[in-house]
């Protein structure tokens, strides 16, 4: 009972986190997007056959759309799909649960950190406020409510550090920490680079406490290595590297160096030796990577705009606007009085964008999801600093400021939650690849009328959406050949009556026995049905 009493605030926070993460989980955002469909269906396939869509037995790297997804999320989805059947909700459930566990982890993380810092120790409520802010965080909520790999890594990061900090006092926890770190490598690409960096920062900051007991460290390292061992072949597999190259910003040298080449030509004409030395392509690479790194400290990105439409709610960024002043004050306080805990948190914030820096499409909210929960911890410090400052202020001023701030916070919260729950589906349904459910429904209802159902590959990976929505039997699918991929092989995908290929409307047979589902731009003439995005623009056309 006393335990409940002690943690009653925490329980409230967890309840809030759970509510926000589970409420309408299967409906908002309107999905599945292609990654969710792939994760859900592959989990289903593993559950039924032990093999993925390609027929690979228990893969350690999920080939999927040739993006070779790290497998952890998919395996976590297996029990959920087993218990509740294959649906968007069951596919997303592991993300939501992970989100709740991360909120809990943040509480313990800050509780551990408190012992290493003056300012943290003084603020009794810091663990609660930090956890609360993560529970409410637009950034965390976004990725706790969609099936995607990165969020698992964040939860593991938090718990790994909790165990690390515990391990400074009781060494047996260190092994738990290294196992968590090992598991992160199964979670998400960019975190494979981030996790070792975080270990490094931790070991530097807490070197005095950590390296007292060599034996425990060796044991922990062994535990970690054993966890990672199965992955080693995957790391040395050239296909894993293709993704790395595919997303790298410095691999497209012609575009990147176009201006540089002109400058070098000019230097050559001028016989400018200094110029030839300075106008160096390495400087262009370095600037590009630095630009990528720094782009993640864009306040506009963090507080207003976000990036890809799937990564944020319309009209919102990744953090609450009202958090901005508290974040800035918190940063100064953490630097000033944070001691080791402060240095560690700041170090975490500095390395968070490293893995994303040399990639394209930056800033990128998923590749830097590992920022969480540092923004929340620092903001919490800022909030408590202000409360501390106001404690001695005259009554009228104190309550004036409080009521103003609370009003603004409520307003900001209302704004965000209505953006998320009310606007998101309407404005962003096309980015969530809306329309397949209706298309599959239609094809199912008219299944007997047609010999063949052709779906355009211009709709992007339609076979997976059909497998997902039809809950197509994986045994049958694999017997029919499973997924073929690579190069133009996507065109060969077919199962049952379904065929997935580009539609060339003029040369199609149109014999009345074939149903076509494609983009509005692909199919002309009269249609059987048009499927619209939620904002009313056309998504797909069904015709024969």
């Amino acid at each position, binding site marked *: 009972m006393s335990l409940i009493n002690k943690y009653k605030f925490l329980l409230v926070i967890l309840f809030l986190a759970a509510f926000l993460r589970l409420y309408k989980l299967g409906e908002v955002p309107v999905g599945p997007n292609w990654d969710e469909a792939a994760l859900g269906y592959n989990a289903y396939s593993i559950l039924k056959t032990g093999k993925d869509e390609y027929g690979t037995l228990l893969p350690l790297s999920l080939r999927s759309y040739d993006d070779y997804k790290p497998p952890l999320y998919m395996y976590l989805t297996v029990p959920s799909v087993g218990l509740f059947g294959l649906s968007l909700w069951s596919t997303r459930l592991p993300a939501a649960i992970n989100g709740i566990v991360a909120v809990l982890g943040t509480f313990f993380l800050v509780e551990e950190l408190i012992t290493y810092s003056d300012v943290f120790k003084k603020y009794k409520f810091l663990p609660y406020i930090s956890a609360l802010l993560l529970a409410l965080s637009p950034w965390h909520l976004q990725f706790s409510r969609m099936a995607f790999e990165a969020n698992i890594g964040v939860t593991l990061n938090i718990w790994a550090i909790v165990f690390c900090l515990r391990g400074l006092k009781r060494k047996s926890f260190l092994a738990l920490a290294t196992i968590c770190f090992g598991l992160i490598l199964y979670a998400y690409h960019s975190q494979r680079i981030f996790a070792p960096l975080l270990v490094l920062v931790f070991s530097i900051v807490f070197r005095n406490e950590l390296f007292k007991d060599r034996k425990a460290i060796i044991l922990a390292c062994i535990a970690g290595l054993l966890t990672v061992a199965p992955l080693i072949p995957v790391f040395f597999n050239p296909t894993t590297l293709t993704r790395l190259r595919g997303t790298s910003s410095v691999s497209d040298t012609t575009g990147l160096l176009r201006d540089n080449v002109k*400058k070098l030509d*000019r*230097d050559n004409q*001028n016989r*400018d030796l*200094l*110029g030839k030395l*300075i*106008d160096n392509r390495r*400087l262009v690479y370095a*600037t590009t990577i*630095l*630009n990528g790194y*720094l*782009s993640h*400290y*864009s*306040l*506009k990105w963090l*507080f*207003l*705009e976000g990036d890809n439409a799937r990564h944020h709610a*319309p*009209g919102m960024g990744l953090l609450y*606007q009202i958090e901005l002043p508290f974040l800035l004050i918190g*940063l*100064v306080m953490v*630097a*000033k009085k944070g001691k080791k805990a402060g240095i560690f948190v700041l170090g975490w914030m500095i390395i968070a964008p490293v893995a994303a820096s040399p990639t394209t499409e930056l800033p990128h909210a998923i590749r830097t999801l590992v920022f969480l929960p540092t923004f929340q911890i620092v903001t919490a410090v800022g909030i408590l600093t202000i409360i501390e400052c106001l404690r001695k202020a005259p009554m009228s001023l104190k309550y004036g400021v409080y009521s103003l701030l609370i009003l603004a916070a409520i*307003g900001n919260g*209302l*704004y965000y939650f*209505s953006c998320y729950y*009310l*606007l998101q589906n*309407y*404005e962003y349904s096309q980015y969530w690849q809306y329309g397949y459910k209706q298309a599959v429904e239609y094809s199912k209802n008219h299944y007997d009328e047609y010999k063949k159902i052709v779906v355009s590959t211009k709709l992007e990976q339609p076979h997976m959406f059909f497998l997902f929505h039809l809950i197509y039997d994986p045994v049958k699918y694999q017997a029919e050949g499973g997924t073929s991929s690579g190069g133009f092989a996507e065109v060969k995908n077919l199962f049952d009556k379904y065929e997935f290929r580009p539609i060339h409307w003029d040369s199609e047979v149109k014999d009345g026995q074939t149903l076509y589902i494609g983009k509005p731009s692909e199919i002309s003439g009269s249609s059987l049905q048009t499927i619209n995005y939620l904002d009313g623009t056309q998504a797909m056309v069904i015709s024969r």
Partner: protein
Amino acid sequence: MRKKLLLIAIIITAFLLRVYKINLNPPSLSWDEVSIGYNAYSILKTGKDEHGRFLPLDTFIAYGDYKPPIPVYITVPFVAVFGLNETAVRLPVALFGTVTVGLTYLLVLELFHQQKHRQSLALLSSAILAFSPWHLNLSRVGFEAVIALCFIILSVVVFLKARNKKEYFYFAFIPLVAAIYTFNSARYFAPFLGIVLLVFVKQKALAAKKQIVSGIVIAVLLLLPILPHLISPEARLRFKEVNIFSDVDIVKLANKRAETAGNTWLAKLVYNRRVFYGLAFLKHYLDNFEPRFLFIQGDGNPKFSIQDVGQLYIVEAPLLIIGIVALLIEFPSIGIFLLLWLGLAIVPAATARETPHALRILNTLPTWQIFISYGVIYIVEHLNSKQIRQLFSVATIGLYAFFIIFYLHTYYVHYPVEYSGEWQYGYREAFQYAESVKDQYDRIVVSDVIGRPYAYALFYGAYDPNEFLETKQSGFDAAGFYNVSGFGKYQFIRQNTQDLQAKTLYILAAGSKPEGATEVFHVDLLNGTPDLVGFHI
């Protein structure tokens, strides 16, 4: 003594960097520079501006953009000495830029009075400003903002000095007034800076009420001539044009979202247009802190930045952050004062649609440089091993040297070639040619493809102001802009004309010479792209 020599060296370097090849790079005069130059010439010759207004104190109408008066008057003596050319228009700004570097030294000295590293800090701040791509780029062009910044800093220095000598409060507000007469963005910033300064020196200010009140009265009196203009519809028209609060798309978005959210009273409250105006303001405000703008590319407008270096050098990024945090920790009141300065100087720019904008937020200088210097000093002070300290110093100086050389190389070698098109390049060559053969033609017809050719014709022909007033055909368009369609032998046209006349020199966009006409000259941009062609039949 060594410090004095260093300061002198910094100021001389600053001066050389600001004047070296000032007439050739940027490669040509922008239309604003030409306008300031010719109005100064007109004042010099006749006492009237190009619109015939006698010694205007409130504003120069110019293109209908209502230029503040001080920069024009400052240019008058330079035009008198050097004639109408690039140097005469740009030199005053370069000189004010150089003075700014020196004033920054005094500013830091006053700001950190009694602190032990203030000398090094002051020297470092002025040195960093001397080499700042931001300040350097802008002080080599006839931009009023550079002059205004000089006044602003002067005012702060006088204010800080007044802490020990009350009488200074009499004059402390005068440079702020001068800034208001110099640059549009300063009009909103200067009064607020005055308030911040009064709060910053509040203890001393309370003891000098009389002096301060008199100072304010003097300032208000000095503002009287410009006041009618500040509240006039013309001034507001310009403001409205660039302002986010007149953007109807924001209202449309708010209404649309309220509708999507169900149009309940709560939805209407949450998706209120004021909320969206607030968010738009925040967006434009934070735009000025974009890392890409500050450290990588600088302002997207090539007139303000060479595009290969940020407004600050990239090495300064960590130093800036460390400097801000360290200053807030060690000297919170100075830190907060500088942050308020920085923060307020961005407010006027954040209400405009084009952000980030290096010129409109120039008044944030030299706070960045002071923070950076403080960061450097703080790090050096806190590295306890001598070797590491030396390593840090060598690395910092080395990186700075590399990026300064990179910047100067790019600025002098690549920049004019790549961006001459941004500088209305071509009119100088065209009008110098036209002036030399003027007597052979009855008419000279010029296309306005590059923009505002009349001002260039006046400038490069050093055309008699009275004759211009008598012969000009001009008018204001619906947006309030001033257009001149001809004067003297010159005709300025929008579209290329079809029926060509004899004894007429045509200067049109490259490629518009009809078959059969005789080309007499052509101008290419510095990167080789054809620009203008001159021909007759």
